[in-house]
């Protein structure tokens, strides 16, 4: 047991810094400096005392420098500092999951946009749901500096329970290897929908993680399935993409991380992306063969909206269904970009109606005007219509509405 530890950040909006010194006597003393002292000073002191009592600490000096941290952050920081001092404490200080977050997501859903948020930056976590990405990734991996990783877990755990995700898919990117396994304890029982597994190189890595997930599900009586999205970030991973995609039945999508991938193959990442073209195609092929969604990497220049749009159209043309976002401003462009175009929808409607016509006539040949439509084209049209319905571009009952009009 160490006698003292500190956690968190000073002078960082929506965060706090805490320092705990375990004493032999003298009871609990709390020294608070807060931007919101007159409004929430009492609340902060009460929470701090309640937590120390909860963890069985009787004599300690707790310093808090608070820059307007919300309760989920304050409690995460205090719990982290307590456990840094006394690692053997197993109890968790949890508040109930907010009612807004008691929703599940379907395996089959749009995953056009997923917004990466560093797991140790409460300021960015608080509003992430507002921008309506399809998914929010609380990142425990590369976005969090090594010294912050342990305490970020508490922030992410509390955020999953207490921050309104506004109906988006709650995703967490865990760390690699053992650290990633440990991360699971902080997310699986707390409402995560989908786990992103970084730097996947073979099916074994996925299976190993999934064993832990399934154990935690049993242990915590979690009924809903936890989905997986492996991230390919190396040459070996790209070669093994298909095996990885099939590694576990709860994998819903496969994606690629281009910064690490290009570094791994000894190339520079370019805007044009020749260096990763084959690997990206490999992702699409592996995902489609395994019946899951192929999702593209992120576009890193947040100021270049035109470049982003071009990269979306290129990704879409290769067969990708979504893209990572590193700024809320990219979400709308990504969502719109991956939605079918008006022309695509109109043509797909015509094909679908022609199919219906052909079926009525008992004919196996679908034709549009004088042109015969091949079965794969019909299949593609059906997929476009399904996407258009999911994207709220056309109503689910568009056919009936069309008939009503006529």
């Amino acid at each position, binding site marked *: 047991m160490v006698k003292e530890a500190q956690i968190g950040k000073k002078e960082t909006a929506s965060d706090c810094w805490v320092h705990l010194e375990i004493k032999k006597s003298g009871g609990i003393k709390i020294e608070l400096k807060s931007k919101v002292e007159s409004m*929430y000073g009492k609340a902060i002191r009460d929470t701090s005392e309640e937590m120390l009592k909860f963890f069985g600490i009787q004599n300690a000096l707790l310093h808090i420098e608070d820059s307007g941290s919300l*309760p989920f952050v304050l409690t995460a920081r205090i719990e982290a500092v307590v456990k840094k001092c006394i690692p053997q404490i197993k109890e968790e200080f949890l508040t109930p999951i907010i009612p807004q977050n008691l929703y599940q997501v379907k395996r089959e859903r749009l995953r056009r946009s997923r917004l990466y948020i560093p797991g140790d930056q409460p300021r960015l976590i*608080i509003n992430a749901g*507002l921008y309506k990405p399809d998914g929010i990734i609380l990142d425990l991996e590369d976005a969090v500096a090594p010294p912050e990783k342990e305490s970020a877990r508490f922030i992410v755990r509390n955020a999953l329970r207490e921050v*309104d995700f506004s109906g988006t898919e709650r995703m967490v990117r865990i760390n690699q290897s053992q650290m990633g396994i440990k991360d699971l304890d902080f997310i699986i029982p707390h409402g995560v929908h989908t786990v992103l597994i970084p730097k996947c190189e073979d099916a074994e890595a996925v299976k190993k993680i999934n064993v832990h997930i399934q154990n935690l599900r049993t242990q915590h009586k979690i009924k809903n399935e936890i989905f997986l999205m492996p991230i390919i970030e190396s040459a070996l991973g790209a070669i093994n993409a298909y095996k990885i995609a099939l590694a576990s039945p709860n994998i819903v999508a496969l994606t690629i991380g281009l910064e690490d991938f290009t570094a791994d193959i000894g190339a520079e990442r370019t805007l044009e992306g020749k260096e990763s073209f084959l690997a990206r195609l490999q992702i699409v092929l592996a995902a489609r063969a395994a019946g899951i969604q192929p999702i593209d990497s992120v576009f890193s220049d947040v100021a270049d909206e035109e470049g982003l749009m071009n990269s979306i159209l290129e990704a879409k043309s290769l067969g990708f269904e979504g893209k990572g976002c590193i700024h809320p401003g990219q979400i709308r462009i990504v969502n719109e970009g991956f939605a079918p175009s008006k022309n695509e929808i109109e043509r797909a409607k015509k094909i679908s109606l022609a199919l219906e016509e052909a079926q009525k006539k008992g004919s196996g040949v679908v034709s549009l005007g004088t042109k015969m439509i091949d079965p794969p084209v019909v299949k593609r049209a059906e997929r476009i219509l399904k996407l258009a319905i999911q994207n709220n571009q056309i109503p689910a009952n568009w056919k009936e509405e069309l008939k009503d009009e006529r």
Partner: protein
Amino acid sequence: MKGKTNAAGRFIPEKINKKPVIPFQGVGKYIPTYRKASPPVASCANYPKDGNKVVPSLREAFKRAGIRDGMTISTHHHFRNGDKVANRIFDTIAEMGIKNTRWFPSASFPCHAPIIKHLDAGVVHHIEGSMNGPLGDYCSLGKMKGQGMLRSHGCRYRSVQDGEVHIDIAVIAAPTSDPFGNANGLTGKSACGLLGFALADSQYADKVIIVTDNLIPFPCIPWQIHGNHVDYVVTMDDIGDPSKIISGTTQITRSPARLLIAEYIARFIKEAGILKDGFSFQAGAGGTSLAFVMYLKEFMKEANVKARFVRGGSTKYLVELLEEGLTDYILDGQTFDLDGVRSMRENPNHVNTSPFTSYNYHGKGHFASMLDVVVLGATEIDINFNANVVTHSDGMLLHGIGGWQDCLFSQNTILAVPSFRDRIPVIVNNVTTLCGPGELIDVVVTEKGIAINPQRKDLIKALKGSSLPIKPIEELKKEVEQICGGAPSPPKVDKKRVVAAIQWVDSTIIDVVYRVIT
């Protein structure tokens, strides 16, 4: 402390600064019938025939103006946080041994912190005008001898016009002036666009001193301030810090939450049917307001709609609307950036206005009430749509009222606010200081949702079925309290010590500010 509860339910002491005050009686209820105040008769025989009113120094000008203890000295705030004149004024009169003056600025800024030593020394007795930064703290902590009086821009004009405030000496910093005292804000190194906030001062003060760092030969064209009102002209090396008077460029917010608020407002205006050919709007220079203008501009182009006029504070973004033909006029109260100044100088359709034309309660109507929509900020809003714009939730004075109260009279008033700042809820049970009655506030737009005042059944109807996140304000408050961990504790204040009073536009007192206990 003797006093009564006003029509808004706030306790108002009988007297402020030992003078009786009238408690707020309700919007539009207080209609005084006395005659306007008037300045003393001047005779041109007393002024130089060659029109040269230049005197060697500020001290000399004060001496000739007959400065005495207890006088009221006014300044304008077109130089914002770059003003160098107000500090010079009080340094000068301190040297002259003058005491107990009342400073009557149209607003004060953090650059005026040096006035604190003059308040401590009794050179300045108290300030009647907005106080923020160090002066706000000074007043909030009860260190000022007299009590502050906060008025909106329109209310300030009114207080001068109806004699509630008698200005003994007005000192008007002017970016360009001629020796006769004709002055404007259009040119010179300290160009600030216009001088509208000094208009009442020039018309009603006993003595008027122009201070300039750009003296040009007669005539100074155009004369935003008439030399015929002016007694003395003084030159000074630097009347302001140009980089702080005007920002080179004004910036649209990059905060995604604020951009979302801006987008919601623009969509609201479109869906409510306010966006139509010939409409008008006013938005400030804050990052959210600027972003709102950008979104609105897109909708205007899409719908092929143009505005008849927009009201400044002007910025590059409003100037673009004018130059792209999306509005016929900018009716401007203050320019916030270099593009605003340039446009006002060069474009006859970019017109300078004053609190008289835009806001004045004793005018025969004003422009603000004609606006179709105005977008404003607030520090707190309660569930009855009452709003605070002057104090922080800890009770400390934070902002001036500016034109905020006056603008509430527009056809549609929208408050754009984050639902909470740090951990502090903006939607609350009870505002710390009441500045605007809820009956004048129509819509509150936050990043978490939009609340429409239940009185505005027309807006509720127009927005029915909208995809915008419209919800009751109580629900917004509940959401915010869930996030922040309950309602905030009320500020710790000394209810026996009123440090400032908030006037309603008509001169009645709508609320008071108490000393904050630290």
